[in-house]
């Protein structure tokens, strides 16, 4: 008996057609009812599974939005574009979304802040905190081991050679994963259009700050004085000034005086001109 290639093709091809038809019918009969909106929302999301919304990944968030568990503008990483699209899918209004950006509130790098010991353990800030709270002289300062860099899903944080993380503001979505990861609570999310932030979180005063860091805030309270910044835009919380961004109406000018008057030059002014719009 001789086998010919055409019979094989015919047999295999018809088998394929029969099974394909079977599968097509089965998928129709056994289909699981799934809300189309879930799929649409999932498509609209960034898909980084960063967890900033509180859901376990983007899929969970999409289901949660449809179930009414999460707000339509709950995806901080996606910003206003994604919120608008999800609102459209859900047929509601996205509301206002303020774009936020992470800032590293420490400027004590290898040159400016003293080290009190040599750390040789696991390269993770939270691990260093377990051993004498790390090697840095300042107990409030950045440990520089990059726990924040590791958790960033958007490649927006990089460790500079000077030992401080640098935020790539174009890539930062303000998801806040780094804020959670930092054991010293140095990273803060501020409104994107606010150029000024305080580059220090030390709760110490004067001499004890100077002893460990050249650029730290000494808590003098100059910036919070009425004649420097009006309307309580900056108030003192113990030994550390707090900027109330909701009171700063003209981001470019309102805090300029405080930045100018600060004796330690602890305020950082971000250059907004170069930043692209979200």
């Amino acid at each position, binding site marked *: 008996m001789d086998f010919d290639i055409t019979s094989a093709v015919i047999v295999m091809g018809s088998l394929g057609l029969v099974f394909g038809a079977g599968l097509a019918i089965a998928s129709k009969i056994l289909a699981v009812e799934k809300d189309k909106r879930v799929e649409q929302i999932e498509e609209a999301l960034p898909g980084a599974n960063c967890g900033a919304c509180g859901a376990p990944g983007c899929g969970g968030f999409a289901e949660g939005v449809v179930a009414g568990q999460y707000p339509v503008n709950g995806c901080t990483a996606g910003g206003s574009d994604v919120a608008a699209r999800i609102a459209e899918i859900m047929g509601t209004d996205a509301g206002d979304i303020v774009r936020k950006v992470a800032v590293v509130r420490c400027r004590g790098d290898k040159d400016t802040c003293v080290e*009190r*010991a040599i750390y*040789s*353990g*696991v*390269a*993770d800030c*939270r*691990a260093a905190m*377990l*051993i*004498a*709270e790390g*090697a840095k002289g300042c*107990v409030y300062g950045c440990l520089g081991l990059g726990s924040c860099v590791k*958790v960033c899903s958007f490649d927006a944080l990089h460790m500079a050679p000077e030992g401080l993380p640098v935020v790539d503001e174009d890539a930062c979505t303000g998801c806040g994963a780094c804020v959670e990861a930092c054991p010293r609570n140095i990273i803060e999310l501020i409104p994107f259009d606010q150029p000024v932030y305080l580059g220090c979180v030390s709760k110490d005063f004067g001499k004890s700050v100077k002893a460990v860091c050249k650029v730290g805030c000494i808590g003098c309270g100059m910036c919070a004085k009425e004649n420097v910044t009006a309307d309580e835009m900056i108030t003192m919380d113990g030994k550390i000034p707090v900027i109330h961004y909701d009171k700063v109406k003209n981001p470019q000018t309102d805090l300029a005086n405080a930045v100018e008057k600060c004796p330690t030059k602890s305020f950082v002014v971000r250059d907004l001109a170069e930043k692209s719009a979200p």
Partner: protein
Amino acid sequence: MFRKKSFRGGAHPHDEKRWSADMAIQEMPLPGTVIIPVQQHIGAPADIIVEKGDAVKKGQPLTKTSKFVSVPVHASISGTVAAVEKRPHPFGTDLTSIVIESDGNDAWAAEPVMNPDYLSLGTDKMVQIIGEAGIAGMGGAAFPSHVKLSPPADKPVDTLILNGVECEPYLTSDYRLMLERPDDILAGLQIIMKILGLTKAFIGIEANKPRAIALLREKCAEKKNIAIVPLAVKYPQGAEKQLIKAVSGRSVPSGGLPMDVGCLVHNVGTAAAIYEAVAMGKPLIERIVSVTGPGVRKPRNIKARIGTPFADLIEFCGGYTQKAAKVINGGPMMGIAQTTIAVPVIKGTSGILVLDERTAAGSDELPCISCARCVDVCPMNLLPNHIAAFIEHNRVEDAQKMGLFDCMECSTCSFICPAKRNLVHYIKLGKALWNEAQKKTG
């Protein structure tokens, strides 16, 4: 060949006892200032009952507690309270401490008097005295001793083991205590036996201390109810669960306590302190500290007041050698490296180890090569390589499922790892992250 009792796993670091083993215990000159941290034990903190400016006398309690799992601290010198503030603590963080400046008189609040009839005190009274004397396990963990001496009725203790193993390299404080004050240890043992109503006890000693074994055997020649058990020289032979396994053959279940298998372990130093408290009414205000290692000029065993700064002890030992590089509270395996020598001796400080450049030199962490040597040596039968890898990749829940909390952080795995992975550090991190997550979810 005769095989010494032991446990599964373990490693053989150099014991390095030679630095200070033959140095008799010396008393420190009276320190000018002592720093007494309020929290030196495991358990609830006690309330401070003195203020800045108060005159205090030696042996006077400085804190008071109504909690059961807690012990007070006492003034270790007489003088004035100079400050009540946060000071560096050997655990690494700044903790509230009572700073006392000496008046040079070293006067007792109540001079310890020998009570010849101490054994006829009731057991409740004895436990109360031990609690009030501030005695917390002196092997290092500093768990309040009176709590261990009050086992619940449903968990009767039938085996008492005194821990004279001192398996941690370099340290010799327990060894010197066994050689110089064996009678105090045995008297303390007798008190513990009376409290628990036991007739038999064991003293476990590592076989690298033949003089201590011989001396205690000689002292116990008459007492048939106390057995001296020489144990294999292996780290961590002195860990509670491993000691119980070696001496009694029983295995403490995962997450359980020695009393779950009817055992109780006390350190020899704790026994001596219990004797001083019960027989003489002396609170815990001093302890034996080995100041040792290649980084210190004259390694010694010192009887130091609680609260004496490390700097004073190191100076008493002739200061650093030229190559001194690292100061550790405790031994090289489980001790904690210090960032300042302003930290004080606390109840659990069995030694101050000063390493030199060579012995302190670390090397960079390399990737795990899956050789499983850590698995071979883990005395708790865990998989340190897997647990550490899970934690490294933020999978703390998986690490917890693999017995994260069974790890006692003995560091045998880190010691043996050819890739120099900081396995125990990962595990400590994992425990901290897990506890943090538990707190968050409530």
